[in-house]
């Protein structure tokens, strides 16, 4: 600990121990604890306590004082835990202090115990303290384990959960010693402390009270999830009969926790454990369809797992969909539609029992299957076609367009119709299925149901967004006609139906709809801008014109999306109307510049900057025509912007421009041979002239002293790049040579001090090079690389702040009189 902190510490301890000077800010105490943790990790705690007796005094004082706040008490418990984590310091404190803090005579019995913060501090203190065998004896001696048992049922969820974790920690600590090296460990050999905890878990598992069972299961889940000693296997051998017994009850108690436990065991156990697989199979068949879903998904994600079990688990995930397919079938479907997953009566009962049960089960099934779909270990063969059929059927039931003839189908339809949650889940799932193929007939159905959703006025904005996303995924995955780069006829036909719908959606009064319509258009154009079929269909529609009109939308998000969309359309030459292409195009550039300089919201301006950067990078025809003028205009507008992201994007654009003038930045590939990076002198001189004309330096230097760190960092990188390129050619010149530099430096200094009013004026290339050398860019970069609060983060400043805060509080008190 540095001497200054040592000097401040007694005063701080006095403040903490004084109930009249409450610490206003909890985070200070947390920071103090973090600091003490760091200090004790770096050196001896014992030494620390001996050098700073005020700390022990504080702990003693806390014990004696009656009216201290619960925060300070909690803090002291945790602090004591941190010190006692080292065995020699533990011995030092053990005599008097620790039993008083953590034993029955301490806060445990007092009024302070009613505060959850104190109970939590007590647990956390013990958790940090329990690092060595001596701690185990201490815990046994002071009866802490029983208290922890009772805290498992604490009304505060944080306390209860921490208590469970502490039990696992103690168990692990107790077992680590004896278990090391010995493979088969008999339960009777276990240390007393572990015996006690395991006994408690056994009792809880046999209890009829569900909360107790849940507690036991979650302790075990933590144990199997976090402890990797061999003893965990012994533990499972000992407890699995009790867990299996839970399955015999109807309904199965604490099913969620049970599923968590089994999955946790399955992940840590060796794959040869047949008993475990049997238990899992038994659990799958005992749990209700809703409860079994997460377990089935977990099983299917396991690396090694018997095929039989995987089949059973997959069957459970498929069951709800099989029921839906069966119920909606006009006639009995082809046999083995979803093999092994014929809709069983229990699933049907759950589906029909209530709306919430039906929606919950279907959404879970769809989400689980959607998660499974992209995984390499997904079941094979993957029933792509029936799943597609089921997704389409569910969507039709939800929209009311399915007309099931069966009784179950009719009731399902009544439950699902208009249900947005299921619609969203099914659309997500349908989108995920686009990765696979399917029979053409089904794919046609997919597109028709997607179109139905896009057309329907009843689709909510969220559903519509999902429908757009799914449509995009299906469109992009649609097969290309072999030997032809154009769209296949089905897709082409779909497009002609889709564009009028998109047109209508772009006119929707709901801004979310307009926004997702525009996003969809952008994505579609990005991928298909070059396809003749797409271009033709798009240009024949009013979509480009409507998109342009949306640049003036009242909603800023929509304006931003419209900017991106028109930018994309224009990149592909899809914005121009056939009559007067030039005029149209120019007006778009002007319009975007207008948005950049006048729009009151940040999003559209950021979007414009991105479009411009992309245009410059891709050599957009209108930009390429007079890139210099374009860059000058954009930088001028961006430099005045109040939004830092716009300014940062301006630097990005400047960098693209630089690269175009001077060549690429250093190769990003670390193995590439380093090429000479500097530009040839002739090119450089010309480039510098251009850069000076577009006033890129004024923009970059201004950004260098930007109040937003990311902007300054970006500018620093840009200038460093420029200096690297320019370095050799400016060799003989000295900073002092140029008459302008001194005044420019003075201006820069003022900018750095925050007065950015004064312009830099026109800079000569020579002056620029000189400036680049004279400014300490590396130094700036290092300063900027540190987080903005690096000065304020030092422990010394923390202590000073805390003392000052108390001082301020005191003054306020005085002011009252």
């Amino acid at each position, binding site marked *: 600990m540095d001497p200054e902190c040592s000097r401040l510490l007694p005063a701080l301890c006095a403040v903490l121990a004084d109930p009249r000077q409450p610490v206003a800010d909890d985070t200070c105490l947390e920071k103090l604890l973090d600091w003490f943790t760091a200090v004790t990790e770096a050196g001896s705690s014992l030494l620390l306590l001996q050098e700073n007796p005020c700390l022990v005094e504080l702990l003693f004082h806390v014990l004696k004082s009656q009216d201290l706040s619960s925060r300070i008490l909690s803090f002291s418990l945790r602090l004591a835990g941190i010190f006692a984590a080292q065995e020699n310091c533990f011995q030092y404190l053990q005599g008097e202090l620790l039993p008083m803090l953590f034993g029955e005579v301490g806060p445990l019995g007092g009024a302070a115990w009613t505060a959850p913060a104190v109970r939590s501090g007590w647990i956390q203190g013990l958790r940090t303290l329990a690092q060595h065998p001596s701690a185990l004896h201490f815990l046994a001696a002071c009866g802490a384990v029983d208290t922890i048992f009772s805290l498992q049922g604490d009304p505060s969820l944080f306390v209860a959960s921490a208590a469970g974790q502490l039990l696992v920690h103690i168990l692990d600590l107790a077992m680590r010693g004896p278990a090391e090296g010995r493979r088969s460990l008999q339960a009777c050999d276990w240390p007393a402390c572990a015996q006690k905890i395991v006994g408690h878990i056994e009792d809880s598992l046999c209890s009829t009270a569900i909360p107790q069972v849940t507690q036991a299961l979650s302790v075990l889940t933590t144990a199997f999830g976090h402890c990797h000693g061999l003893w965990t296997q012994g533990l499972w051998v000992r407890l699995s009969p009790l867990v299996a017994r839970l399955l015999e009850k109807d309904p199965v108690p604490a099913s969620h926790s049970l599923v968590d436990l089994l999955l946790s065991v399955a992940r840590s156990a060796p794959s040869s454990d047949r008993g475990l697989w049997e238990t899992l199979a038994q659990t799958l068949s005992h749990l209700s369809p809703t409860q079994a879903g997460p377990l089935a998904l977990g099983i299917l994600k396991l690396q090694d797992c018997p095929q039989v079990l995987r089949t059973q688990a997959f069957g459970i995930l498929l069951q709800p969909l099989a029921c839906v397919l069966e119920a909606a079938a006009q006639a009995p479907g082809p046999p083995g539609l979803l093999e092994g997953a014929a809709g069983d009566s229990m699933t049907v009962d759950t589906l029909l029992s209530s709306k919430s049960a039906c929606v919950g089960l279907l959404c879970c099934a769809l989400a689980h299957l959607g998660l499974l779909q992209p995984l390499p270990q997904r079941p094979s063969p993957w029933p792509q076609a029936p799943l597609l059929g089921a997704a389409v059927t569910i969507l039709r039931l939800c929209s009311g367009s399915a007309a099931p003839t069966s009784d179950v189908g*009719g009731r399902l339809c009544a439950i699902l119709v208009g249900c947005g949650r299921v619609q969203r889940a099914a659309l997500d799932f349908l989108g995920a299925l686009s990765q696979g193929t399917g029979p053409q007939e089904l794919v046609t159905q997919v597109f028709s149901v997607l179109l139905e959703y896009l057309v329907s*006025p009843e689709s909510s904005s969220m559903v519509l967004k999902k429908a757009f996303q799914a449509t995009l995924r299906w469109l992009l995955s649609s097969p290309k006609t072999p030997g032809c780069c154009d769209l296949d006829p089905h897709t082409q036909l779909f497009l002609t139906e889709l564009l009028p719908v998109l047109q209508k959606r772009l006119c929707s009064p709901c801004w979310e709809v307009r926004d997702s319509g525009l996003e969809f258009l952008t994505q579609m154009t990005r991928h298909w801008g070059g396809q003749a079929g797409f271009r033709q269909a798009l240009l024949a529609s009013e979509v480009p014109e409507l998109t342009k009109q949306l640049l003036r939308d009242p909603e800023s998000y929509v304006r931003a999306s419209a900017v991106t969309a028109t930018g994309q359309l224009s990149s592909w030459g899809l914005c121009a109307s056939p009559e007067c292409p030039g005029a149209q195009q120019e007006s778009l550039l002007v319009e975007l510049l207008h948005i950049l300089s006048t729009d009151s919201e940040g999003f559209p301006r950021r979007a414009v900057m991105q479009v411009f950067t992309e245009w410059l990078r891709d050599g957009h025809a209108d930009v390429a025509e007079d890139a210099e003028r374009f860059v000058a205009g954009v930088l001028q507008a961006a430099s005045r912007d109040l939004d830092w992201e716009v300014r940062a994007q301006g630097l990005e654009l400047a960098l693209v421009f630089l690269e175009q003038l001077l060549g690429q930045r250093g190769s990003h590939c670390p193995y590439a041979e380093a090429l000479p990076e500097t530009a040839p002198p002739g090119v450089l001189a010309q480039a510098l002239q251009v850069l000076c004309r577009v006033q890129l330096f004024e923009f970059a230097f201004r950004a260098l002293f930007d109040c937003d760190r990311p902007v300054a960092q970006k500018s620093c990188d840009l200038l460093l790049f420029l200096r690297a390129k320019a370095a050799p050619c400016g060799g003989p010149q000295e900073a002092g040579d140029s008459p302008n530099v001194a005044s420019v430096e003075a201006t820069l200094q003022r900018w750095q001090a925050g007065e950015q009013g004064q312009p830099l004026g026109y800079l000569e290339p020579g002056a620029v090079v000189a400036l680049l050398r004279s400014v300490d860019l590396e130094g700036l970069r290092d300063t900027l690389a540190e987080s903005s609060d690096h000065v304020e983060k030092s422990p010394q400043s923390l202590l000073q702040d805390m003392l000052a805060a108390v001082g301020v509080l005191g003054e306020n008190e005085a002011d009252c009189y």
Partner: protein
Amino acid sequence: MKLYCLSGHPTLPCNVLKFKSTTIMLDCGLDMTSTLNFLPLPLVQSPRLSNLPGWSLKDGNAFLDKTELIDLSTVDVILISNYHCMMALPYITEHTGFTGTVYATEPSVQIGRLLMEELVNFIERVPKAQSASLWKNKDIQRLLPSPLKDAVEVSTWRRCYTMQEVNSALSKIQLVGYSQKIELFGAVQVTPLSSGYALGSSNWSIQSHYEKVSYVSGSSLLTTHPQPMDQASLKNSDVLILTGLTQIPTANPDSMVGEFCSNLSLTVRNGGNVLVPCYPSGVIYDLLECLYQYIDSAGLSSIPFYFISPVANSSLEFSQIFAEWLCHNKQTKVYLPEPPFPHAELIQTNKLKHYPSIHGDFSNDFRQPCVVFTGHPSLRFGDVVHFMELWGKSSLNTVIFTEPDFSYLEALAPYQPLAMKCIYCPIDTRLNFIQVSKLLKEVQPLHVVCPEQYTQPPPAQSHRIDLMIDCQPPAMSYRRAEVLALPFKRRYEKIEIMPELADSLVPMEIKPGVSLATVSAVLHTKDNKHILQPPPRPAQPTGGKKRKRASDDIPDCKVLKPLLSGSIPVEQFVQTLEKHGFSDIKVEDTAKGHIVLLQEAETLIQIEEDSTHIICDNDEMLRVRLRDLVLKFLQKF
């Protein structure tokens, strides 16, 4: 209690309720769908329409859909729930000998008048050179092409009423306010309750002292312009008559408004015109409000909106003055003071213009592309006919149907072939089946009565079992020309006791919480009110001749014997008898009670639930002794 169902149209109901001694007509809606069988009445002679083969211009008629189920002159009162449900009023008040009163709220009357005025105007301004009625003869009708030959009860179709009849009918209306209690002949009390559907729209609660019937007509739970629906007052109903649910249960009004705006904007942006056939009041206020918020954002500020109706001006102005009938938001605006509806601003800024007809000023101001709101939604009469003829040929134009009352395909039939786009966005804010099921759970009526259409899924979507009323016990359904006996019996009648009589009562508690007293009084009944008055004092014996005669009339007021109550525990009774020296007692159980035999005294005591008999042989002393012993076990009062 009976319900006579005169209309088969669930949203244009007409039912008559006989309750206690009153005959109450609930609404008198006018089903005008039969106008669709006629050709449109063009404002300008249309060569196309008049040259259609085999057709000639017929009279545009409006029709009364009633049967001779009940003599309408016996109807005591008519309760109107909203302006759409009163359109048949002149037919009833003017031609049936009706002499009662009509109750309606002020906005219902005023806007109803506008609707009638518009209807009469539309019909009368296109006078017919001739009218034909021979075809109504069944033998001829049979020969006519479909759908005319399939039309039912053509003979009951009537000509449209005149303005004079309208005025006369409206003069019979008495204005009422929400929650106002109106006594009908002392027998029942009727109260209009806000229904949230339209300006001044109401449901009705009809109650006597011990029974309550609620009548729910067009109601809405959506937040539009009217005052919200009063659900609480519908609680504790014995019978709830449920009519006027949404006609388009699958279309959510919000989505439809969105659809309306999207299509309107799309058409106008392409340089096309939009035609909206509508009624001059109601949803149009909400549409204008939506457009007010939407047009600027959609860049449509320069597009003119025209509202053409003979009553356009009155409708727009009336809506602004009924502040007390509006929703809370709009009410507060009035105090700012600001006009509650934003269409005032649209008019001020010249974005919305209104005209009585296409003639006159309109033709000077007319600018395209534009949006026109005009009637009639059936497309058979009114200025809309002209616009259909004018714009029908161009695919740039769009007609958007927002009123759900008419099938848009049938409405369009005479205009085919049509190039203009047709969009169907029916906006019906009335209750849907989900809302109804919540409402019924909330108010829990003992019985629900509704049109038969509501008890099964719509014919076109027979699998949609969610589109029907689902309640327990199942709703009773009615169809046109049916008489329903409502499933509850009246069991109690309220009788008032005069204070001086009440003073004289001496209640005796016979078990905790229950006290009894005997009353001797005169029951006085007048205007369906029953009052117990103290009996007149017995005449003074010294009175004159006249007085004596008076005393003959009054009932005998002897000092009454006390009434007895309680039951006799047989075992204790036997013990008491034994204590009093009777021996040789035998008890026999009978079906109704017990018989106690005193064999020695040859006496029999028959104890039953409501009587006790002592049968002994001429031994009055013994009987009195036994009687006193029996009485010991009973309470007297």
